[in-house]
C-alpha cells in the first residue's frame, strides 16, 4: 500500500519547478507522451459515446448507417490503441533519462559534500535517497505521469458526456462521486496511521536482529540460541498483530469504494428508469449512460491513486533536491600545487599565480588552532606546533584527546574554528583543496578497500601508476609477499569489505596505497589492534623507508612505534600536556612515562 510512504512535500511550488527542470531533459518525449495520452483517453470516450448513435440506428432500422457507425467506432479505437502503444514506450525511455540524470547529479553532489555531512548522517539515510526516493520518482514517472493525464481527460470527458446525455442524472452521479472522494481521503489518512505503527514495530525488530546477528558468535559461545529465539518470537508476534491490523484496514478500502459505486449505479438505474418511463429520456441514452458510469469509477480511482503516488514522488524529489542543495565543501584556494618532477625534492612545486614554481618543502605549522565539531565544545584548544620538512611528529593520548582531529584539520576534512595551519608558510585554506589533499598521503585507521583487484586498490593512490610502481609500493609496505600468495596475485579480486583478507593485510594494502601516491607529507593513523607487534615490526621497516625525508604525522595507538619520532606530542582533552623526544619525555616521568610503563590505559 503506497499510503505508508505518502508524505506530502513541504514546499510544493519550488519542488515542482525544480522537478520540471529535470523533466525538461526529456522535453519533447514528454510532450509527445502528453499528447498521445490525451488521444488515447479521447478515443476511449468517443468509442463509448458511439453506443448511443449505434443503438439509435439499430432502433431506426438503418442497417447501412449502423455498419458505418460501427466501422467508425473501430477506427477510433484503433487510433487509441496505437497512441497508447506509442506513449507507453516513449514514457519508459523518457523516465529513465530523467531518473538517470537525477541519480548522476545526486551522486556527484554527494561527492562534493564535506566529511562533516557523512559523519553526522547515517549511511542508511543517504542510501535511502538513492533507493527509496529515486524509486518513488521512477515509479511515478513510469506509471503516474501519463496515467494521470489520461485518467484526468477521461474523468473530465466522461463528466461532459454524461451532462450531454442527461444533466439531471449527472448531478446525482457527481454527488455520489464526492462522497467517494471524501471516503478515500479519510481512509488513506487512517490507514497511514496503521502503517506507521507497523513500521515502528518493524524498526524495533530490525534493531534486535541487527544487534543479535552482530553478536552471533557470542550467542553461540554462550549457547544462548534458545533465549534469542524466544526474544525474537515476542517481537515477531507484535509485528504480526500490527501488520494484520494495517493490512486488514487497507483491504477494506477496495470493497467499500466498489459498494459506493454500486449505490451510484442503483440510483442511476432507478432514476433513469423513471425518466425513460416519463418520456424525458430516450432508452439508448440510458443504456449508453449506464455503460459510462461503469467506466467512470476506474479513471476516478486512478486519478486519486496516481495523485497520491505523484505527491509521494514529489516529496521524495524534495528530499533529493534538499540533498543537492546542501553546501559543498568550501574551496576558495587559489594557490596550486603540482607534481612537476625535476628540481624539488619530491617532484612537487607551488604554482603561485604570476610567479615561477617554488619547490615544496613540507613545512607544517599549527598556529594557535582551536576547533570543535559542534559549536561550543572544543576538541582542540590553542594548539601550536611545527613539523619541519622531513620530521616525524607523533601524537599520543587517550581516546577523545583529539589526535585524529589534528589530522582531519591538516587535509581540511574540517576547517579550524580559529587560528591557522600553514603549509610552507601558506594558509591551507588558500591552497586548492584537491592539490592539498593529493600532496598528503593518508593511511586511515579503518581501512576501506573497494571492490576490484588488489592492483586497482593500490592504484587508487595514484591512477597513472604503472604495474611496476604498484608492485614497488607493495614491496615498501611489505604487502608484496602476501599478495603474491593470493590465488591470482595482484589480479585477485577483493570485495568491498575486504572479506578474505585479515585486518593486518588490509592495513598493509592501505599503506601500499599511500606509498604509490608518493606524497611529500604523510598522515598515518595507526591501526588499533589488528596488527601484532611482530607484523608491525615488518610494516615499520617499510614505513621507515617510506617516511625518509617526508614530513610525517603519526597517530600512535602503540608506543613502540613512536620511539624514533622527532617530536612526540601528548594530548589530553585537546591540549598539549607534554612535548619532546622519547628520552626527554621519559625523563619527565609524567603522562608519557605513565602510558609507556602501562600504568595508564592507552585507548
Amino acid at each position, binding site marked *: 500500500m503506497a499510503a505508508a510512504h505518502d508524505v506530502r512535500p513541504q514546499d510544493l511550488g519550488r519542488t515542482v519547478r525544480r522537478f520540471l527542470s529535470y523533466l525538461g531533459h526529456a522535453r519533447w518525449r514528454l510532450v509527445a507522451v502528453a499528447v498521445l495520452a490525451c488521444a488515447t483517453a479521447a478515443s476511449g470516450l468517443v*468509442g463509448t459515446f458511439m453506443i448511443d448513435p*449505434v443503438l439509435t*440506428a439499430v432502433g431506426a432500422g438503418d442497417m447501412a448507417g*449502423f455498419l458505418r457507425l460501427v466501422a467508425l467506432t*473501430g477506427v477510433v479505437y484503433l487510433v487509441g490503441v496505437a497512441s*497508447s*502503444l506509442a506513449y*507507453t*514506450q516513449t514514457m519508459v525511455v523518457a*523516465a529513465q533519462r530523467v*531518473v538517470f540524470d537525477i*541519480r*548522476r547529479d545526486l551522486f*556527484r553532489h554527494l561527492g562534493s559534500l564535506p566529511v562533516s555531512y557523512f559523519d553526522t548522517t547515517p549511511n542508511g539515510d*543517504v*542510501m535511502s535517497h*538513492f533507493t527509496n526516493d529515486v524509486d518513488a520518482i521512477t515509479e511515478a514517472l513510469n506509471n503516474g505521469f501519463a496515467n494521470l493525464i489520461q485518467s484526468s481527460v477521461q474523468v473530465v470527458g466522461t463528466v461532459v458526456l454524461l451532462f450531454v446525455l442527461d444533466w439531471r442524472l449527472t448531478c446525482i452521479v457527481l454527488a455520489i462521486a464526492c462522497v467517494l472522494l471524501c471516503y478515500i481521503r479519510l481512509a488513506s489518512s487512517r490507514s497511514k496511521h496503521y502503517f506507521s505503527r507497523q513500521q515502528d514495530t*518493524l524498526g524495533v525488530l*530490525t534493531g534486535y*536482529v541487527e*544487534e543479535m*546477528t*552482530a*553478536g552471533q558468535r557470542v550467542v*553461540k*559461545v*554462550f*549457547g544462548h540460541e534458545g533465549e534469542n*529465539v524466544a526474544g*525474537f518470537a515476542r517481537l*515477531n508476534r507484535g*509485528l504480526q498483530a500490527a*501488520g*494484520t491490523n*494495517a493490512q*486488514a484496514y487497507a483491504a477494506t478500502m477496495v*470493497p467499500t469504494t466498489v459498494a459506493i459505486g*454500486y449505490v451510484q*449505479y*442503483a*440510483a442511476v438505474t*432507478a432514476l433513469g*428508469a423513471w425518466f425513460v418511463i416519463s418520456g424525458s429520456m430516450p432508452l*439508448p441514452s440510458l*443504456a449508453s449512460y449506464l*455503460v459510462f458510469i461503469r467506466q467512470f469509477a476506474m479513471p476516478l480511482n486512478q486519478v486519486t491513486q496516481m495523485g497520491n503516488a505523484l505527491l509521494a514522488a514529489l516529496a521524495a524529489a524534495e528530499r533529493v533536491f534538499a540533498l543537492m542543495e546542501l553546501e559543498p565543501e568550501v574551496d576558495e584556494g587559489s594557490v596550486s600545487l603540482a607534481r612537476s618532477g625535476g628540481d624539488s625534492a619530491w617532484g612537487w612545486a607551488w604554482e603561485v599565480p604570476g610567479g615561477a614554481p617554488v619547490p615544496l618543502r613540507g613545512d607544517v605549522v599549527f598556529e594557535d588552532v582551536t576547533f570543535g565539531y559542534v559549536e561550543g565544545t572544543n576538541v582542540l584548544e590553542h594548539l601550536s606546533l611545527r613539523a619541519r620538512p622531513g620530521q616525524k611528529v607523533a601524537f599520543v593520548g587517550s581516546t577523545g584527546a583529539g589526535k585524529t582531529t589534528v589530522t582531519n584539520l591538516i587535509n581540511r576534512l574540517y576547517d579550524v574554528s580559529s587560528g591557522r595551519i600553514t603549509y610552507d608558510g601558506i594558509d591551507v585554506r588558500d591552497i586548492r583543496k584537491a592539490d592539498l589533499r593529493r600532496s*598528503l598521503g593518508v593511511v586511515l585507521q579503518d581501512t*576501506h*578497500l573497494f571492490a576490484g583487484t588488489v592492483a586497482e586498490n593500490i592504484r*587508487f593512490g595514484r*591512477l597513472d601508476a604503472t604495474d611496476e610502481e604498484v608492485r614497488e609500493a607493495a614491496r615498501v609496505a611489505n604487502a608484496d609477499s602476501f599478495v603474491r600468495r593470493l590465488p591470482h596475485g595482484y589480479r585477485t579480486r577483493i570485495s*568491498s569489505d575486504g572479506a578474505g583478507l585479515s585486518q*593486518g593485510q588490509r592495513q598493509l594494502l592501505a599503506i601500499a*596505497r599511500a606509498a604509490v601516491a608518493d606524497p611529500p607529507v604523510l598522515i598515518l593513523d595507526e591501526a588499533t589492534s*589488528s596488527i601484532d607487534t*611482530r*607484523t608491525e615490526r615488518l610494516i615499520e621497516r617499510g614505513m621507515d623507508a617510506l617516511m625518509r625525508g617526508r614530513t610525517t604525522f603519526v597517530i600512535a595507538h602503540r*608506543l613502540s612505534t613512536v620511539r624514533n619520532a622527532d617530536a612526540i606530542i601528548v594530548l589530553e582533552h585537546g591540549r598539549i600536556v607534554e612535548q619532546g623526544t622519547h628520552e626527554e619525555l621519559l625523563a619527565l616521568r609524567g603522562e608519557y612515562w605513565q602510558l609507556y610503563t*602501562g*600504568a595508564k590505559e592507552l585507548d
Partner: protein
Amino acid sequence: MGRLRILGRYLRPSRRDFVLCALAIFVETAFELYIPIIMGRVIDEALPARDMGIALGYAAQMLGCAAVALVLGFVYARLSARCAMSVGAELRQAEYEHVQELAFSDLDEIELSSLVTRLTGDVTIIQNAIAQGLRPFLRSPANLVLALGFAISTSAELSVVYLVMAPVLGVALFAIVWRVSPYFQSLQRVVDQLNEVLQESLAGIRAVKAFVREDYVAARFEVESTDLATASTLTFRTAQLNLPTFTLCIDAVNVALLLTGGSMVAAGTITVGVLTTFMSYVLIVMNSFMMFSNVFIQLARALTSMLRVADTLSAEPAIASPADGAPRVEDGSVEFRDVSFKYSELAEEDVLEHVSLRVPAGSTLGVLGGTGSGKSSLVQLIPRLYDATEGQVLVGGRDVRSYDLAGLRAGVGIVLQQNVLFTGTVRENLLWGDPDAGDEELLEACRLACADEFLARIGGLDANLGHGGSNVSGGQRQRLCIARTLLKRPRVLVFDDSTSAVDMATDARIRANLAGLGGMTKIVIAQRVSSVMDADQIVVLDDGRVHGVGTHEELLERDDIYRELCELQLAGGEEG
C-alpha cells in the same frame, strides 16, 4: 522453482484462512456480477411495461447485492491480512531460528547486512506480495468464470465474442509476463550492484576525499547507473506492452459486441437490455486477465526475495550436534592430535598445519605468534566453533565431535577477540554466563575480572550499558566479557587476546586472580609476552605451525621468535 518448495511449509498454517478467503471472494463476486443482470431486466421489463414499481424493486435488489458484497469484502479483508501476516511471521521466525543454528564458518560466508535484509526486507516484500496479490489472484478467476457463466446463460450466441477474445488476451498477456519475468530478476541484480558501489563509496568516503578520488568513484557509479537505466528500459518497455494489448482486446470485443449484438437486436433475437448487460461485462471479463497478469509480475518481482529466503532456510549448518553426544565435559584436559585446519575447502593453504599439543587439566597454556599465525583458529577448534580439517581435538580425553554441542560449549568458556556486550544492564549481560546466578556470584565474577573497580562508578549491576555496550570503554568491556565467561564456571577457559585494552597492572591482577581458581585449564592468547610468561607452557605459532613449546626459560634459550618478542617488548619496560 524446486528451490522454492521449502517455502510451502510456511503457507500451511494459513490453509484454512486461504480457503475461507477464496470462498468469500467467490460469493462476493457472484453478488456483484448479478447487478448488471438486474440492470438489464430494468431495461427489458420495467421500461416497456412503464412500471416504476418493478424498476424500484430491481433497484432495491441491486442495493441488497451491493450490501452483501460489502460485508463479504470486509470479511475477506480481515482473513487475507491474517493470512499474509501469518506467512510473514512464520517465515521470519523460521529464518531466525535457522540462523541460530548456523556455525561460525556459515556466518563467515554471509554478510551481516545481508542477513538482516533477509530477515526483514525480504520477508516484508513476500508478505506484501501476498497481501496485495491475493485478492486479484482469487478474484480474477472468480470474475472470469462467473461473468462468462452469467453471459452464456443470458445469451449463448453473443457470448461467442467473449469466448473467442478472452483466450486471445490471456495468451498475449501470458506471453508478456513470460518474457518480462527474467528481466525483473536481472534488473534486481543490477540494482544490487549499484547499491554496492554506493555503499562502499559511503563507507570509504574518507579515503575518497583524502586521495581526491571523487571523480573516480562518480565514474564507477555512472557505469552501474547506465547499466541500470539500460536494464530498466528493457524491462519496463516489455512490461508496459500489456496496457496497449489490453486496450486492443477490449476494443475489439466492444466493436464485435456492437456489430453482432446490434444485428441481433435489429433481428429481434436479443433485447437492448441484454446487449447493455454484455457491454457492462466487457471490463469485468477482460480485466480479470489483466489483474491476473499483474499478480505474476508482482510475484516475479518478489521472486528474488523468495529465492533468498528459501536458500537461507535450506542451508545446512556446517556443524551439528551428534545424536547422543556426551552431555558434559568431565575434566579440563585439552589435546590437539596432528590437527590441520583451513576455513574453506577451496582455500589453498592451511591455516594450521599438523599441530600437536597436550594441555593437562588445570594447567595454563600461553599462545604467542604473529598475525595470521593461526592463534585464534587454534583455540576456536576447542569449543567446536569450527571443525578441524584433519586430525583430532580432544577435551577431557574425548573427541570434541562426540560431545553434545551445548554440553561442550558449557564446559569450554571462550572470551572472543571480537567480543560484544548487548543492550541492557550489566546484570542482564552477566546472566548470559549463568541465568541462575545471584548478586553475590555476579559481584564475585566482577571482582575476579577486576570489573569491580569501575562497577560502582558506572552505576553497579543495574548500570545501563547502552546500545552494544557503548557506554563503557574498550578495557572495561573486556573485563565485563571476562566476568561473563567466568560465570559459566567452565572446565577450560580460553582468552583470545582478551586483555589487549587493559593496562598492564590490571592485566597482571586478573592473571593473579585466575591463578587462584584451581582445576580450571587456562589457554591464553596474548600480544604481550608479560601476559603469558608465567604459564606452565607457552606455544609459539608461526605460519600455522608450532615453532616452539616450553616454559619461558626454555623458549628464551632455544626459540628465536620468542627471544625477539621478549627483546622488543621487555626492553622498553626495563628502560622505564
